[in-house]
């Protein structure tokens, strides 16, 4: 589904309680998944190298004693990355105005289909402090403000503009691909990062307690 097609649906002004049922267009679900898959295929073929390079630069900072931060203005991607089973133990939300961030640190800034002022300001503040800043979001099309604010930006292949229901799906996939690349780069440096075990799995408390204690010692 393109942004324009979704916009047509959005223009219906839901919720319309008491609305009459239209004839079902059963292509909508396949169309949405097909569009998501097309974009993911494009990210895999055209952006994987860029993701790997950004991941190695993130790892370079952390391996030398820096910290890894993440920011997005709504908090969804921060919530996705922090305290997450299968996610990094040593990643934190970027403090307001990038306070305390130093040139040793690394920052991920995620922006939805139209980068907002808070995302741009956070990226600029972290960059001004000397941190390496990787962006995820729209980096082509009419609005290149995210790319201008970051050292490296992984374009989510959407053309910007509001209302696209694919941005969250694609940005989340890119975020985890970036973290996957970061894990690989840290392993290559002999410093594999600690990962949360799901609290729904047997033995998770003992595993996580030990891993957290080790994370506190080594910093990643």
């Amino acid at each position: 589904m393109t942004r324009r097609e979704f916009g047509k649906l959005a223009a219906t002004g839901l919720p319309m309680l008491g609305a009459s049922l239209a004839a079902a267009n059963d292509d909508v679900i396949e169309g949405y998944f097909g569009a998501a898959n097309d974009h993911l295929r494009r990210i895999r073929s055209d952006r994987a190298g860029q993701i790997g390079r950004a991941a190695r630069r993130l790892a370079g900072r952390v391996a030398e004693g820096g910290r890894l931060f993440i920011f997005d203005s709504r908090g969804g991607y921060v919530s996705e990355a922090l305290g997450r089973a299968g996610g990094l133990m040593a990643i934190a939300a970027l403090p307001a105005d990038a306070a305390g961030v130093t040139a040793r640190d690394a920052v991920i800034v995620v922006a939805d289909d139209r980068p907002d002022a808070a995302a741009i300001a956070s990226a600029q503040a972290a960059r001004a402090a000397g941190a390496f800043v990787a962006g995820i979001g729209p980096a082509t099309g009419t609005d290149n403000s995210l790319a201008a604010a970051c050292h490296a930006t992984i374009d989510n292949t959407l053309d910007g503009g509001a209302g696209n229901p694919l941005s969250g799906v694609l940005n989340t996939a890119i975020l985890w691909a970036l973290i996957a690349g970061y894990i690989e780069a840290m392993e290559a440096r002999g410093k594999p990062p600690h990962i949360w075990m799901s609290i729904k799995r047997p033995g998770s408390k003992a595993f996580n307690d030990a891993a957290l204690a080790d994370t506190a010692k080594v910093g990643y």
Partner: protein
Amino acid sequence: MGYAEAYLDAVRANLEKVAQREAERLRQAAARIAGAIAAGHRAFEFLQGHFLPIEAARGHEDRPLVFTPITLPDAAHLRPGDVLVMSHQYGVLPECVDMAFAARRHGAYIVAMCPPSDPAVIVRSHPSGKSVPDLADLVISTHIPAGDVALQVPAGGPGACPTSGTIQAAMHWALVCAVAERLRP
């Protein structure tokens, strides 16, 4: 192949599995929700977890509002004829299961968007031993990989990089689009 590529391959494979195996159940859910709204009932969404509750929250510009967010303390607002969509990684946490029990008591139709799971692998923490899929009228699986980790790295660890955030968001928006399509003027 690098880990980033491996992750993107895994998430695409996961999405393709959902598209191939769950499209019909998503259509059933969309028809049920659209029918309920057209008949004057309401469609609620109970979301717990990481990315999706914020992604699906109201306030995204230009996106249709199909669902009313609901939390456990408001479960008494549910009525027969209403539909409750519940999306969660596994639907095993006590608050999720309590919500599903409450929805059943109030006569709401429950759509669970989470995978069935093995209690020996995914701990049931509700005293009943139930999970949301056990209590739902319609279960739509997310087909996330075992343990919700796409990569078995670093060696000796629990595995890394979940797909559930991406997949739950895709399923949420596919369902929203399908309901919106059915209710368009």
